């Protein structure tokens, strides 16, 4: 009658995150205004506990709650990504929130809830559950995006994100409805059985298309990438960091589950959609970034481009392809988090220093920050011995394994085009004369740790990627 105890383990991470979120909400009112940082540490503790709880989840893997949710290696992997993202983002947010005078407990609570939602997404084995998880993460991120309430840009970003997000969600929902109508169920396994018994009808495929719209919006696949630059630019930078890494990972996870497990047998239909979308995404991201002078926006475009690379691996629609997607998500999370955190740090109070020119001479005034940033940029660029290169390498090889030569060639050329704007930032950091009028704010421990972790991750995944690759492969296998 009542679900067994293991089910609680299987949603352990979510439980932990939510509990800590509520804790924060409960304690927050009693914490004096000056001490709100403690809430952040509480949140950080939450993420650590959540990470630890993954262990139990791992020990009793399996499907939970009448198979609405699956805690398999795949889900674990994605959990790992999103929770670590949250942890690092929290570390990176402290100083920022202080500078912006918005140091409040709700921020951390929302972050935790959002992460929980992503976790649900990662494990969902049923469309409506996925929908609810999606909403959890989306709604909290809508709010986070608008967290700098007095800032017009922040409002605008939040508003656009909200309107377009719920618009896309509506499509997603209608897709669910149609799928339900076509297969009498919303559970992935049932759908795939239905598909294996008889071919996909128009209704089902229409549903799939609408689902693709909804999820494509979250993974910023062209032409649904359209909102990304504005939202990323307007949102508080640490939030942007999260947006670029966490929800994207979760959305890709659920997309994999839906397309690869549920609708796997219709891959010949959705493959081309992914192919075209991948090409568009890469090209739009890279070309538009060429002319950006605002680093934050530039990174937003670059995140579009990277979504494109991930889609290349996605298009492979093979086990290795899935593994490649997962590995790419991990490495991309590491480097983009680091990059955005540095943007947050350099941006200073009110995010005033976002232009490339503001980075001039960083190499001399702040060698270590510059070195880190260069590392992340080079990794985004795909320089060997960094996470970015291995990600691309794996993705391309997966795609080539399915003989997607042209797709890979396009992707490869794109990555060179991308090199230009990443190098442009490096140029300004090292080759331009430093502008004197700026005294860098001190680098506090939390941010330092955050950068250290991301940098370490970037290098680790670049030089000794094998363990993570094995995990990714195992997760891919665990999908069915």
């Amino acid at each position, binding site marked *: 009658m009542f679900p067994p105890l293991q089910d609680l383990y299987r949603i352990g991470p979510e439980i932990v995150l939510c509990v800590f979120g509520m804790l924060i909400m409960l304690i927050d009112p009693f914490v004096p205004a000056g001490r709100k940082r403690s809430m952040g540490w509480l949140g950080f503790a939450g993420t650590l506990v959540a990470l630890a709880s993954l262990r139990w989840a791992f020990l009793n893997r399996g499907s939970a709650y009448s198979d609405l949710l699956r805690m398999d290696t795949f889900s674990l992997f994605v959990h790992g990504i999103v929770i670590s993202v949250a942890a690092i983002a929290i570390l990176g947010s402290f100083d920022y929130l202080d500078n912006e005078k918005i140091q409040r407990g709700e921020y951390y609570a929302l972050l935790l809830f959002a992460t929980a939602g992503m976790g649900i997404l990662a494990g969902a084995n049923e469309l409506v559950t996925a929908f609810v998880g999606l909403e959890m993460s989306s709604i909290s991120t809508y709010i986070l995006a608008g967290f700098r309430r007095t800032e017009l840009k922040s409002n605008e970003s939040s*508003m*656009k994100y909200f*309107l*377009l997000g719920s*618009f*896309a969600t509506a*499509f997603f929902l209608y897709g669910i409805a149609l799928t339900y109508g076509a297969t009498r169920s919303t559970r992935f396994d049932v759908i795939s059985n239905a598909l294996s018994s008889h*071919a*996909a*009808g*128009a209704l089902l*495929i*229409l549903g*799939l*298309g*609408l689902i*693709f*719209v909804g999820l*494509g*919006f979250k993974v910023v696949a*062209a*032409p*649904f990438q*359209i*909102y990304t*630059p*504005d939202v990323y630019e307007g949102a508080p930078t640490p939030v942007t960091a999260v947006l670029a890494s966490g929800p994207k990972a979760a959305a890709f996870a659920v997309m994999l589950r839906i397309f690869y497990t549920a609708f796997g047998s219709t891959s*010949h*239909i*959705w493959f*081309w*959609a992914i192919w075209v979308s991948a090409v568009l995404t890469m*090209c*739009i991201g*890279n*070309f*538009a*970034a*060429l*002319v*950006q002078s605002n680093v934050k926006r530039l990174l937003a475009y670059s995140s579009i481009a990277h979504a494109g690379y991930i889609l290349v691996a996605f298009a492979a629609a093979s086990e290795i392809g899935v593994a490649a997607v997962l590995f790419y998500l991990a490495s991309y999370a590491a480097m983009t988090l680091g990059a955005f955190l540095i943007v947050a740090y350099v941006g200073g109070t009110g995010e005033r220093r976002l232009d490339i020119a503001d980075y001039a001479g960083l190499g001399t005034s702040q060698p270590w920050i510059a070195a880190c940033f260069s590392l992340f940029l080079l990794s985004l660029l795909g320089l060997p011995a960094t996470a970015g290169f291995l990600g691309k390498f794996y993705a391309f090889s997966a795609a080539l394994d399915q003989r997607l030569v042209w797709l890979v060639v396009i992707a490869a050329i794109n990555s060179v*085009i991308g090199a*230009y704007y990443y190098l442009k930032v490096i140029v300004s950091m090292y080759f331009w004369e430093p502008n004197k009028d700026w005294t860098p704010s001190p680098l506090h421990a939390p941010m330092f740790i955050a950068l250290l972790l991301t940098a370490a991750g970037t290098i680790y995944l670049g030089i000794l990627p094998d363990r993570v690759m094995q995990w990714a492969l195992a997760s891919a296998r665990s999908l069915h």
Partner: protein
Amino acid sequence: MFILNHLWVIIALPLAGSMLTLLAGRHWPKKAVNLSSVGFPVLAFASYCELVREFFALNPAAPVIKDYFTWMVAGNFRVDFALQVDQLTIVMLGVVTFVGMLIHIYSVGYMAHEDGYYRFFAEMNLFMFFMSTLVMSANLVLLFVGWEGVGLCSYLLISFFFTKKSAADAGKKAFITTRIGDWGFTIGILMTFWLFKAVDYQTIFAKVANMPVEGMHHWGALTVICLLLLAGAIGKSAQLPLYVWLPDAMEGPTPVSALIHAATMVTAGVYMVARMNPFFSHSPAAALTVAIIGAVTALYAATIALAQTDIKKVLAYSTISQLGYMFLACGVGAYAAGIFHLMTHAFFKALLFLAAGSVIHAMGGEQNMFNMGGLRKKIPWTYGTMLVATLAISGAPLFAGFFSKDQILFDAYAGINANFLLYGLGTLGALITACYMFRLIFLTFHGKPRFDEHRVHVHESPKVMVVPMVILAFLSIVGGWFVLPTYFGGKDSFQAFLEPVFAGSNALAQQMRPGYVEPPHSLEYEMAAIAVGVALLGFLIALYLYILKPNAAKKLATGMRPIYQLLLRKYYVDELYGAVVIGPLIWLSRNVLWKVIDVGLIDGSVNGLAFLSRRVGGGLRHMQGGNERSYATWVVIGAVAVTVFFVWMVR
């Protein structure tokens, strides 16, 4: 048999001298420099004498070859650093070491007041080294080493006064022009290797010996090789059409002109042709080409010499023309005669230059003959020696030049590959030679002084300069007496000595012309008489124009101005080359290759691509217009596109 077993000594000595002087000489006093830089050539000559002694004692039929180390080896290609000595080498080496030594001694006096003294001698020694390598090499590639090496030294020494633009230009011109010839030489070597899979003389001569002679009209590989090698020889020995560098080379110090551009280096081409005689004798076409080029050059250069005013320029053109005679000789198969002339020419031409140097020295650097005159009294030694040399070159009886040139003309007229036309050219050349040489003598030493006697204090040169001149003068007289016996029915000991080297070719020539009979002995005298007559005629013309009727020359010049101008301007060949080759090449390189293709086309397209992609980006960013409604529309577009596509897929 020390030297014969250690041939390297002969080339090592000058090299040692050069290195020593170059590295240490900078801070040495003059005496020390003299000691090292003159001492080593003297030693070299000494060892050469020893070599000759040993050689005659041994008197080997085949060349003595000493293989020292492998220089290049890759795949089936292999070149050894091997030296060899045979009769030809003995002769050449003699000329090189002996004349070289004398000129070194002379230079001690001549260069006394130049700065860069040590540099001069270092480079001279280096030249000796490379020249000896050239003549002693046992394979083509090593020959090429010496070949290029002497070219380098000539470059260095011509531009010795490098602060003078003309000198620098001349050096560069010399090197590059010869390089053009060497291009042919290189390909010739490549082709030789391709044909014989070897480059050392022994092998290739052995292999070529049993190849058929190639016809005059359908050429084979050998002919091509010979012509390519000939290109190299033309460049080095300043024959038509690559002679243009030699006159300019007179920018160098006079001893350099004497040693390099008269006695030794420029004769390398002749030496090479003689050395490769088995090839040329297998290719009548090539041989004829050699002869024609030689004869034409002989006449051509002589005519130019007629109108020159610079004393050294006259000598330069006369050198070109004399080299022409040598080529003519080789071309008609009279290699021995060619080498013979080479030797005698080395003596008297070196002497001429040294004497000219002495004149210039006396005149305090003046080189224009029209600003000289009447030096006879003031510098008697110079005058005497120079007169001897002049007699020798213009073929006065019993002087060295007489015999050698006579032999050449004889072979051209009655030799085994006789050709009357070539003989005619040669004889005409001889006439003009006598004419311009005596013109030189008269203008320089006779008549009234045409210079300000108070400003210029003419003085005889020091002993150290005079002595070598005297020695050379002596040799210019007796140097040709080897062949004296032939006129009394005796045998030509020089030819006999060189026989082993050219035997094959001569024999082959005999086969080619079975019907050929030795010309009657009386012919010798007739030819000699003609030669002497021609020389005399030339002398008389000069006498008439420059002594008896001093202003006749001017009249003549004004009378036939165009021709005079033509000769004075050396047939405008330099201008021609400048206008036809150099100018266009530079224009092409700058305005087409660089500005248009490199910067415009290639780089332009690259940058254009970058620009284009930025424009595309600029266009794409306008997709993000900031208006939420358009964003929504994009989403709808995407949705419709995807769904329509999907539904169409399952239709």
